[in-house]
């Protein structure tokens, strides 16, 4: 009797094994983890990075796009010409493109989308990108002519941002919750607080793309929960893993591919340039020389990251390495402070947003600055609500710290209302000139000079370029390790057979 039962059990086990051994159907779905849930799915009306990550290039497309190295490429415009005076851009549009609801894409869509972005009541977070536009003409359905009021060297680049995507006029009111674009994936469902599901757009203009039938973005804020979801196999990857201290363990695990990618995200300790003693460049230079950037990278980011010397990322075209201008040198820092009349040091307040990496960075900076006699009072500031209000709206701070995610955003130092409160006419001039210049080499040269001014005057302490810590299933291919712009581009993703 007992042997009989064991025999039957063995037979069942053998059947199960055989079934398991038969080739499983090729996997054609993907689940990726993200730390922050988007606040709506329309990248043209609000700024949070998570919105662009889910929607840009997946649901919506623009006239131009950036490739994985950050170069401008055609997308919904197949080609363009720029008039010799740099004021007229003529775009040839891609034929046969339809929105997910069937609306055809043509020049009237281009006119509508860009006019909406630059309208007086527009809440587009990058409204200034569209300010140079004077008028948009539509000589025929497949041609759009944009006339600028003034030259704008980065115009094509800015058209590649999520803030400049093409929208169907019929759906602009509902895109926030029910996005309709021209992208390779269609919106399927959003279980708020948990996931956004996308399904393949079978009518996508680029045949053979995408390869996956469905993509799900899962939102997991807690770093330990992110790691647990990866290990339990709940998600196939976490392209922007937020816990550098746990990354090393995944590097040892053969199930996962771990790639350290580059990003344009700059970790910067902003200084209030309108408040003494921080209005004195000697004091700011002393603070910069009191800071060992490598110690912050090691202490707060487990060694991942690249030191920077100005407000430019190594991946941005025109980057100049200026980390040697004000290197770590506490003795020099003390001397500079004495020259500025602060030989006995001083006390300032640091509004520290509450995120793990910023908190650790604040504490390390506090220790380093105390070495040269500067006392940093760390005041926690709830992020985003309180921090935006205190630092951004009211300028009520001396020192703070935040990661600036936008690429090529050196012009923020030329904005009078920006939180650094930095004023330098020569710098403003350079940036204004560079922004207008269409020639890339000449523009890079001007941006190089602008970077040098910041490296020397340190309106903010330049700490590091943040890495992108990618963890995904070793069999997954086609995801971008780098981040030329905030995105989670799944168009080309597929599974190795």
């Amino acid at each position: 009797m007992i042997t009989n039962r064991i025999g039957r059990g063995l037979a069942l086990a053998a059947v199960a094994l055989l079934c398991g051994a038969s080739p499983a159907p090729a996997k054609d779905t993907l689940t990726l983890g993200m730390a922050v849930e988007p606040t709506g799915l329309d990248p043209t009306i609000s700024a949070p990075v998570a919105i662009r990550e889910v929607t840009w290039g997946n649901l919506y497309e623009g006239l131009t796009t950036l490739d994985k190295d950050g170069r401008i490429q055609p997308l919904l415009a197949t080609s363009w010409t720029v008039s010799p005076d740099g004021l007229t851009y003529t775009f040839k549009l891609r034929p046969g493109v339809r929105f997910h609801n069937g609306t055809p894409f043509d020049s009237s869509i281009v006119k509508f989308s860009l006019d909406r972005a630059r309208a007086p009541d527009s809440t587009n977070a990058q409204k200034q990108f569209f300010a140079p536009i004077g008028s948009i003409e539509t000589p025929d359905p497949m041609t759009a002519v944009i006339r600028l009021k003034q030259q704008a060297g980065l115009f094509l680049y800015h058209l590649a941002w999520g803030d400049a995507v093409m929208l169907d006029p019929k759906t602009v009111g509902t895109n926030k919750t029910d996005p309709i674009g021209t992208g390779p994936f269609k919106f399927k469902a959003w279980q708020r607080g948990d996931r956004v599901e996308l399904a393949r757009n079978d009518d996508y203009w680029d045949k053979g793309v995408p390869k996956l039938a469905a993509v799900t973005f899962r939102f997991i804020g807690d770093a330990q929960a992110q790691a647990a979801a990866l290990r339990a196999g709940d998600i196939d990857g976490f392209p922007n893993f937020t816990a550098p201290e746990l990354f090393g363990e995944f590097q040892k695990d053969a199930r996962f591919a771990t790639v350290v990618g580059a990003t344009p995200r700059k970790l910067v300790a902003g200084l209030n340039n309108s408040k003494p003693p921080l209005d004195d460049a000697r004091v700011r230079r002393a603070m910069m020389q009191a800071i060992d950037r490598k110690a912050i990278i090691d202490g707060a980011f487990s060694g991942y990251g690249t030191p920077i010397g100005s407000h430019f990322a190594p991946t941005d075209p025109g980057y100049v390495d200026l980390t040697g201008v004000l290197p770590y040198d506490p003795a020099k820092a003390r001397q500079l402070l004495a020259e500025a009349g602060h030989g006995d040091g001083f006390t300032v307040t640091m509004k520290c947003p509450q995120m793990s990496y910023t908190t650790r960075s604040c504490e390390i900076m506090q220790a380093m600055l105390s070495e040269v006699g500067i006392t940093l009072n760390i005041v926690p500031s709830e992020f985003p609500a309180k921090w935006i209000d205190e630092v951004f709206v009211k300028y009520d701070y001396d020192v703070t710290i935040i990661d600036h995610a936008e690429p090529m955003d050196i012009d923020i130092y030329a904005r009078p209302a920006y939180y650094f409160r930095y004023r330098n006419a020569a710098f403003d001039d350079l940036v204004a000139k560079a922004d207008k210049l269409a020639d890339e080499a000449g523009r890079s040269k001007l941006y190089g000079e602008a970077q040098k001014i910041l490296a020397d005057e340190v309106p903010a302490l330049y700490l590091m370029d943040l890495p992108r810590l990618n963890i995904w299933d070793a069999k997954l291919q086609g995801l971008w390790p780098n981040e030329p712009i905030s995105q989670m581009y799944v168009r080309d993703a597929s599974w190795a057979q």
Partner: protein
Amino acid sequence: MGRTILRRLGSFALTLFVASLLVFAVLDLLPGNAAAILLGTAARPDTIAALEQQLGLDQPGYVRYLAWIVGAFTGDLGRSATYGVPVGGLIAERLAVTLPLAALALAIAVALGVGLGVAAAAGQGRAPDRIASGLAQVGIAVPDFWFGILFILLFSTTLHWFSAGGFPSWSDPAAAMKALLLPALALALPQAAVLTRVTRSAVLEVAGEDFVRTARAKGLSARRVLWRHAVRNALVPIVTIVGLQFSFLVAGAVLVENVFNLPGIGRLAYQSLAQRDLIVIRNVAMLFAGLVITVNFLVDLAYLWLDPRLRRA
């Protein structure tokens, strides 16, 4: 009896009204606004002003309060500033996770807590008592989210029996229940520990009273004395604790929901507070307040039913 209930209903409504004023006023004092947060580091004065107007944040406080109250009575709770969807639906989606979670946790806590508590009382001073009291000691000392982390380590990342979190939606009820089991257990254990102690001491206290001695003297079996007389009369303090626990489980599940990444009402409260989505947080806060006030009201009614002596008061 009828007048007692009416009086309690009146004070129930008044408490709700005062709570709504407090909730509105306190939240309005918070620094930061949803428009500036949505625009983040790209915010400029003109875009903030335009978005404030679109979200209705530029109106005076009394106008927004009246709009909220009038809307609530007509079933329109407003739209979330961050998600852009009606708040009522948003809250309903989250309650569909949290209410079953809290109910499951409460059922586990009552079964474990009352069972262990009665066993401890029946075997006072002997092994069952010592075991139950020891377990209760551990359950009270260890917080629920810590149980959650342990469960994930053991059942998800090591044994792979459960997923490490998330919620698959009720379209697949079996999968949904499975996703709630570990978090419910984690939530239940500390509550069960409290219930074990309360039950044990309540039963022991009643066991010393005259009517129990009388029942025993009449020759009833020990089991019948325990369940029919001692436990039934010990139910008043137990029901009080269970009532308090249910509102605690709904409002206080935020840490466990975070550990298991569950899209419940606790996470919604936390997120909307961080985003200064005042329309959402206001309604969630009112829901919590309403829940506590309602549960207290129901516990009051339960007393009247359980203990005839209170009906005369």
